[in-house]
């Protein structure tokens, strides 16, 4: 790699492509953040349904989770994008992708949540009942604070999967980081350099996320049984 700043060198070409790369990076981060938020909110709700719902609700949630875990993410994205269009719902590719990613990750969050709350000893729920807490308060003051430590590592993994999964949006034409890099390569043919640069950016995002998760986890270290 030549690190001087003349035309045709990597740094020069990267500088030339900075605007589109940054915009791609922005799209990647925005779509990831939106999907993570959707998956977390919907996943928690569905997790409650899985763990505590009436039998028919549990069955529905279980069906959804198994469905989402059995179909490849790419198929979900393509299905959402082309399928919705068929119903006359013209969702922009970006939103089709975010919906598909969010729906996919919801299943993972829900399943993790179920596992985590069921790992809290049964006596905790009983003690919370015994002092007269209603269901919502039992969850938010007693069960969740204890389940969160066990939920965190798989939640971080899901977040990483989402960030990586946003690359699939390039296949339906969303110009996120990977596609913006490929567009730059189409102009300058610096395939190796630009793929490495893109990979480095993904590693930076995900490594930061993983570290953040690990430091959060340490904050819950007071939870012992």
């Amino acid at each position, binding site marked *: 790699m030549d690190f001087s700043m003349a035309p045709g060198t990597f740094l020069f070409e990267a500088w030339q492509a900075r605007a589109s790369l940054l915009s791609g990076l922005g799209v990647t981060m925005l779509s990831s953040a939106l999907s993570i938020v959707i998956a977390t909110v919907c996943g928690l709700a569905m997790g409650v349904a899985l763990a505590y719902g009436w039998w028919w609700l549990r069955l529905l949630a279980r069906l959804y989770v198994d469905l989402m875990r*059995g*179909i490849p993410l*790419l198929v979900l994205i393509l299905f959402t994008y082309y399928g919705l269009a068929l119903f006359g719902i013209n969702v922009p590719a970006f939103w089709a992708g975010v919906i598909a990613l969010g729906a996919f990750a919801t299943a993972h969050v829900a399943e993790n949540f179920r596992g985590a709350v069921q790992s809290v000893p049964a006596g905790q729920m009983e003690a919370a009942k015994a002092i007269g807490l209603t269901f919502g308060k039992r969850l938010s003051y007693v069960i969740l604070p204890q389940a969160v430590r066990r939920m965190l590592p798989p939640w971080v993994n899901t977040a990483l999967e989402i960030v990586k999964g946003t690359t*699939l949006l390039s296949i339906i034409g969303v110009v996120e980081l990977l596609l913006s890099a490929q567009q730059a390569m189409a102009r300058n043919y610096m395939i190796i350099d630009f793929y490495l640069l893109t990979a480095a950016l993904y590693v930076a995002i995900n*490594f930061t996320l993983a570290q953040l998760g690990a430091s959060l986890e340490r904050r819950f270290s007071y939870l012992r049984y």
Partner: protein
Amino acid sequence: MIDYHFDWSVIARNAGKLTDALLLGLGLAVVSLLIGSVIGLLAAYARVSGKAWLSAPVWAYVEFIRCTPLLLLIFFLYFGLPEFDVTFLDKTQSFVLSLSLYAGAYMCEVFRAGLASIPKQYVEAAKAIGLRPWQRQAYVILPVMFRITLPSIGNNLISLFKDTSLAAAIAVPELTFTARQINANTFRVMEVWLTVSALYLASAYLIAMMLRLLERRYASIR
């Protein structure tokens, strides 16, 4: 569903194509799992070797793969390797290489956890009857670890099978690529995606069932 009329004949007409595509995807997943397992096993031993010059590169490899999108890896090897004059790989082989490298990192973690969870007394018992180091590995540690990690290996196989859908991005004619091709020719989007989703689901389910049988078989030997 405003004006859409289902016409399932498109599936019947393309049944052979879809079957071939499904089998190709399964084959890609199995081959990648096998190569990935070899990579993962070597990497896991390097990781637990206690030698920094062995374990540090493996750590970097695992973290890099964990943080890098598979699609990027696929493109990088497919478009990038020819830049290094590696031109003898066709797109399918290039994809298998990507998926194997990807699987290797995950399998490394699986095997590392497996090695760590082998009860000490097995190793001690193996020493006590005078087995040499490689014999201890081959006759005691590996078989025990294989049993411990079987469920994780199975989950990885299912994940890899779903990941074969990304081969569509470099035009490997597996299920997702074939579906898009049929769609482009016939516009029977709903029929095709529903069928393909069902095929993926059914295959994942079948793999899971087979694994459960395998696990039960090994559990009963105990």
